[in-house]
C-alpha cells in the first residue's frame, strides 16, 4: 500500500478508535456510579463540534506559542502513529514523543495565561518526574528481547511467547502509565476537575479540537504500544478487543477511585516505577 495512504488510514483509525474508547470509558464509569452517562460517541462528537465553533484567543495568551503548541501536540501523535502501526519503528521514538507530550502539556498550560492552565503546567512538570520513569520501564523489554525495534519485539514474541508472562512487572508498570493518562484517573493531576480542564481550559474552537484529536490518538497509541510490546503479534480484531478490555479496566479503576493529591499521585507513580524497574531486573537475574 502507498505509504501516505497507509499513514492517513492509520491516523483516522487511531482518532476514531481513540475517541470511541474514551467515550466508552465515560459510559462505563457512569454506569458504575449509577448514572445514565453520555452516548459512547460523545467524545467524538465533542471533538468534531469544536471545529465548527468560534476560535477565541485570550488577551493573556502568549502568541504564537499558544497556537503552535496545539499543532505540535497533534503532529507528535501523528508521528507516533507513523512510528508505531505504520512502520513498526523504534520504541525509543515513542518514548521521546511521550516526553514531548509532557512538555506540550506544560507549555499549553503556561501559554494560555489562565491560572488554571498555569496550575496544570506546574503539575505537568511535576507528573513528568513520575510518568517518564514509568515509561522507562520499557528498558526492561530491551534487556529481555535485546532490541527496541517494535517489529523485532513482535518477532521475538512470536518465537518466545508474549512478554506479558516473562516480564509481568514491566507490563503492570506500563499499565499504570496508561491509567495515569486517562482523563478521570487518580493520577490525572494535570486535568483534574479541581483546575477546570487543566491546560485545555483556555483553548477554544479549532485549537481545542486539535488538542482533543491528539488526546484520542494518544490514548489509542498507548494502548497499541501496550498490546504490541507485551502481547505480541495480534490481528486487527484482537487489537480492538484488547483495547476495549483495557479501557474497561481503566474505567472501572477510575470510577471507584478519587483523584489523588498531586504529591501522593507522583510519589505513588514513582514507587510503582521503582518497583517495576528494580523488580523486573531482579526477576531477570534469577
Amino acid at each position: 500500500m502507498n505509504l501516505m495512504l497507509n499513514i492517513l488510514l492509520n491516523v483516522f483509525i487511531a482518532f476514531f478508535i481513540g475517541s470511541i474508547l474514551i467515550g466508552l470509558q465515560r459510559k462505563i464509569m457512569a454506569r458504575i456510579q449509577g448514572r445514565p452517562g453520555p452516548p459512547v460517541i460523545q467524545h467524538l462528537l465533542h471533538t468534531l463540534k469544536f471545529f465548527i465553533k468560534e476560535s477565541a484567543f485570550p488577551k493573556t495568551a502568549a502568541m504564537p506559542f499558544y497556537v503552535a503548541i496545539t499543532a505540535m501536540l497533534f503532529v507528535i501523535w501523528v508521528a507516533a502513529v507513523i512510528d508505531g502501526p505504520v512502520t513498526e519503528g523504534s520504541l525509543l521514538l515513542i518514548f521521546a514523543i511521550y516526553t514531548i507530550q509532557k512538555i506540550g502539556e506544560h507549555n499549553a498550560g503556561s501559554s494560555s495565561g489562565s491560572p488554571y492552565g498555569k496550575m496544570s503546567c506546574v503539575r505537568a512538570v511535576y507528573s513528568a518526574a513520575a510518568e517518564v520513569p514509568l515509561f522507562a520501564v520499557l528498558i526492561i523489554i530491551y534487556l529481555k528481547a535485546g532490541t527496541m525495534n517494535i517489529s523485532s519485539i513482535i518477532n521475538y514474541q512470536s518465537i518466545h511467547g508474549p512478554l506479558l508472562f516473562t516480564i509481568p512487572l514491566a507490563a503492570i508498570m506500563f499499565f499504570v502509565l496508561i491509567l495515569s493518562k486517562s482523563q478521570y484517573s487518580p493520577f490525572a493531576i494535570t486535568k483534574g476537575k479541581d483546575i477546570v480542564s487543566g491546560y485545555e481550559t483556555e483553548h477554544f474552537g479549532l485549537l481545542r479540537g486539535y488538542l482533543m484529536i491528539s488526546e484520542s490518538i494518544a490514548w489509542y497509541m498507548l494502548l497499541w504500544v501496550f498490546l504490541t510490546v507485551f502481547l505480541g503479534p495480534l490481528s486487527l480484531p484482537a487489537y480492538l478487543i484488547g483495547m476495549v478490555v483495557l479501557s474497561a479496566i481503566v474505567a472501572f479503576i477510575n470510577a471507584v477511585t478519587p483523584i489523588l493529591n498531586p504529591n501522593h499521585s507522583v510519589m505513588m507513580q514513582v514507587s510503582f516505577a521503582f518497583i517495576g524497574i528494580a523488580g523486573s531486573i531482579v526477576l531477570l537475574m534469577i
Partner: protein
Amino acid sequence: MNDATYLIYIISFVLGSIVGLVLSYRKYTAPYVTKNIDIIALAVSIIGWMLVINSHLITFIPVYLNITIGIFLVAMVLGMRPGYGRYETVIGFIIAAVVWIGTVLV
C-alpha cells in the same frame, strides 16, 4: 481484513450511532426509561447482529458489505439516547450468537 475495511467498519459504527442518537431523541421525550422494549429497535438490532456475526450465511452479498451494514444497524440501537436500546442490543446479540453456535454445531 485490511486497514481500509477496518476504517469503513468504524465509520459505519460512528454514523450508525449518530443516526440512532438523533432518531431516538426525536422518538422519545422521557429522559431515562429502562424497562420498555422498542419492537422496531429490537428488529433492527436482531438484523444487525445477524449480519455482523452470521455474515457467512448470506452469500449473495460480499462479507465486508454485510458486516458494514450490520455494524451500522447495531450502532443505531446501541447509540440510542441514554437509557434506551440496551435490552434490544443484548437480545439481538444473544439471538445472533445462538444462531452462530447452531451453525457451528451443525
